[in-house]
């Protein structure tokens, strides 16, 4: 393949797209009309009718995520979400699977840092059954002990397996080293130590304490009749009994000062994977569109400055990029790439040079014009399906953003000037204060990378946890 569609970059791209981007030139992009209602029990519902493909998509956001995991129990929110379908008041996990698969439907539940999401997709003709399955899992999970044990064991091995592929875990180490004990530094899927501490009681408590209609918003998009859908939702999800939920705010993390470097030793690596950067911005930052435009130029597309330097011109890597993972509180900014052991320092040096050049020279009018055209031209496929639309409108609602994120995209992107770009670079792209994380063969690269920071840490990849090293608390 020509360019990696790595998960991390895809997350960055999707998030960047959701930050708000432009419409196609000559045609204004617009989110389809949608309705917002609040049921008596406090559940917020967004309804978007889209005809043409006979499917219905549900996307629910429960406004509590991994950031609320108790200390030492990283993975609790994630495991709770994973167990919703693994046994309800009317179905065993196996029965749920059989009923879901029979109609070819999909069901997913997971927890990110800011929120948990529960989603489903099925054919319009199966609306009654699809909605019933979705409600059953969301409202009536029973967390059978056997299923709890199974999922925890699977998750534990899953973390170990992920460590066999540095690409899968570089983000976890980076976020951990950047944020330390702040919630955004903790692995949302848990680690080898935390997963062993999680007990059924804690899962039930997390569910009962956070899954409530007043703490949830649901987007429904696809081919359906609005009035009929409202009625069905009132009957199924309207019956969800209301209770109050403690809202959790995430503290704003202080950006890192100075430089520090973490080297994770993977003895058999022939390639070093690296990420560096600092704390970025929150999802609703007023500079988000300008940031998006500048980041596109710097590290957000194939012809970005980073990729041009590290791949196209020098051949050091198959891909280099930068991202803003913007969240409720300021999320990470990072520059990431990988290169063979022998060119580790050269590649990092080059990435640093490109970053310094961004600060010294900013971006040109021509680069801005190109990036704006790119953002606008590439946006329409992001709102092509009802699956995408359900997720986008729910996410905007959660972060307090509106339809203008799409409807005013073109105008906002066009309004970014070189002066605005300069300010955004100064304010939001780090320069001297940098946190580095590398995964690679320590014996081959450690001396070459000493120069990047005086403060340095190291761990073998096989040691449990990411960063900080988990303390050995009693079980």
């Amino acid at each position, binding site marked *: 393949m020509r360019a990696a569609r790595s998960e991390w970059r895809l997350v960055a791209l999707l998030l960047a797209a959701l930050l708000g981007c432009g419409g196609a030139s000559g045609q204004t992009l617009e989110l389809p009309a949608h309705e917002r209602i609040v049921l008596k029990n406090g559940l917020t519902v967004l309804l978007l009718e889209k005809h043409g493909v006979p499917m219905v998509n549900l996307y629910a956001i429960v406004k509590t995520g991994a950031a609320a995991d108790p200390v030492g129990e990283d993975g609790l929110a994630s495991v709770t979400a994973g167990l919703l379908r693994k046994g309800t008041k009317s179905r065993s996990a196996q029965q749920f699977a059989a009923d879901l698969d029979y109609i070819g439907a999909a069901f997913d539940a997971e927890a990110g840092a800011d929120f948990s999401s529960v989603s489903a997709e099925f054919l319009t003709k199966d609306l009654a059954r699809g909605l019933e399955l979705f409600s059953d899992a969301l409202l009536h999970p029973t967390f059978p002990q056997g299923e709890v044990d199974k999922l925890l064991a699977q998750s534990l091995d899953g973390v170990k397996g992920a460590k066999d592929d540095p690409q899968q875990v570089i983000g976890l180490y980076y976020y951990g080293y950047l944020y330390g004990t702040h919630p955004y530094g903790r692995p949302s899927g848990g680690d080898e130590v935390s997963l062993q501490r999680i007990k059924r009681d804690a899962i039930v408590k997390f569910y009962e304490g956070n899954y409530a209609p007043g703490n949830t918003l649901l987007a429904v998009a696809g081919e359906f009749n609005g009035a009929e859908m409202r009625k069905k939702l009132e009957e199924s999800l309207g019956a969800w009994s209301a209770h109050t939920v403690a809202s959790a705010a995430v503290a704003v993390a202080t950006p890192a000062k100075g430089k520090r470097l973490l080297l994770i030793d993977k003895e058999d690596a022939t390639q070093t994977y690296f990420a560096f950067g600092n704390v970025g911005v929150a999802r609703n930052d007023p500079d988000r569109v300008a940031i998006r435009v500048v980041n596109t130029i710097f590290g957000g597309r194939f012809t970005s400055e980073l990729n041009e330097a590290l791949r196209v011109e020098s051949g050091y890597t198959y891909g280099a990029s930068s991202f803003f993972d913007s969240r409720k509180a300021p999320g990470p900014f990072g520059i990431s790439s990988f290169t063979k052991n022998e060119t580790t320092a050269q590649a990092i040096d080059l990435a640093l040079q490109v970053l310094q050049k961004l600060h010294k020279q900013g971006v040109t009018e021509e680069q801005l014009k190109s990036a704006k055209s790119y953002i606008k031209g590439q946006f329409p496929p992001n709102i*092509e399906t009802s699956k995408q639309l359900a997720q986008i409108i729910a996410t905007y609602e959660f972060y307090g953003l509106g339809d203008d994120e799409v409807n005013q995209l073109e105008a906002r992107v066009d309004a970014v000037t070189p002066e605005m770009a300069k300010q955004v670079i100064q304010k939001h792209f780090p320069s001297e204060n940098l946190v580095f994380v590398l995964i690679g063969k320590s014996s081959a690269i450690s001396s070459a990378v000493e120069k990047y920071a005086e403060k340095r840490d190291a761990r073998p990849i096989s040691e449990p946890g990411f960063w900080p090293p988990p303390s050995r608390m009693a079980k």
Partner: protein
Amino acid sequence: MKTGLVYRTVVAALGALLFTGTAAWGQAEFPVASRTLKNGMKVLVQTDHSIPSIALYIFYRIGSRNEGPGTTGISHFFEHMMFNGAKKYGPGELDKVMEANGGSNNAYTTKDVTVYQDWFPRSALPLIYDIEADRIRDLSFDPGKVKSEREVVASERRLSVDNENGGLLDEQLWAAAIVAHPYHWPVVGWMSDIEHWTMEQLKHHFEMGYAPNNATMVVVGDASPEEIFQLCEKFIEPIPTHAPPPAVTTVEPEQLGERRVVVRKAAQLPLLIVGYHIPQTNNPDFYALNVLRTVLFEGESSRMYQRLVDKEQIALDVSSFTSPAFDPTIVQVVAQPKQSVDPQVCEKAIYEELARAKTAEISDTELEKAKNIRLVEFYRQMRTINGRANTIGTYEVFFGDYKKLFDAAKNYSGVTKVDVQRVAKVYFGASSRTVATLIPDNAHEKAKP
């Protein structure tokens, strides 16, 4: 398993679709306009104005099966070089110009085809044709670019194979399962071949494979057939025909007994892949095989998931993979054993489940379920311009006619329990399987004081 190199479909999804109203199995079609240019390139256009975007795919019938020892990986390398400079748009210009006009691109190489993908707003339409014509006709081979791109490909190999256990084991599996036919070697190429390709080999490959008569163009989105055919006449039709690649004549001899491969390397978790021989994609058992695989592997109610992941808890997941192929190929069963589980325990369970499917028919419920799953998966493929471009092209190239995608619903409906049992018996025998296992070997760790 993630290798960015090989285009994989978990199961190629087929069914019927209506865009204008209610869906039903086996109903009509969406219009596709078709023209074969004077130079032999076939062009297919499906118009859709729902978003102001276009997906343009060009399928070249050249892949790693057209290579030989010493030049393995050259098709894939060539795919990279197609972006690195031609006559009008020099090194680095293609991407800059495309992205500056709102477009993006990618490409992938498989054992059979190389596919170039462009996604762009309709305003960029003439420009895209100018770019494509330039590189099809006049690709240049700047030595500096060859040098740096060789490094890029080596980095890609390290990313998806050398440092990725799934990719590594997959490579070993193919090499053991296929001993004679060119499917034997990896698409990305052996590392020593990557290091030694010459300029002559590159130029020869271009001359061999990149003829317009060896390609099919698919355009889906906000463009009419008239304007596309006009652009083709202007930009593409003048490009001369030349001979397509020589036919691949090697036929893989029948495998006469089980083969086993073991890879020992540093790892936290073991891995298991079992490969079985199946015919080329365009074969009468295609639908029955897909139904069998759906029953066995798809969804948490599937037989393999229930047995290995849920009940016995010996694996984290178990799935099957195959890709479209011109020649007889391999279907893989991939199991991720849990850390403490010997892969042979997973093997035993897999063979027992396969045996069940051979000795008794699947149930009516399972048959119906499998067909429903395939239908919904088809809708997922068809609901985006990108998915449609890929599916129309895949059908045209591998089944010989894009219209066959409209028969899929009928073909699925026609699959019986007897068919499913038969294909289980025919294709999943013990003597035609190749078993590749990755065993964690962390000796270097044990050696530490």
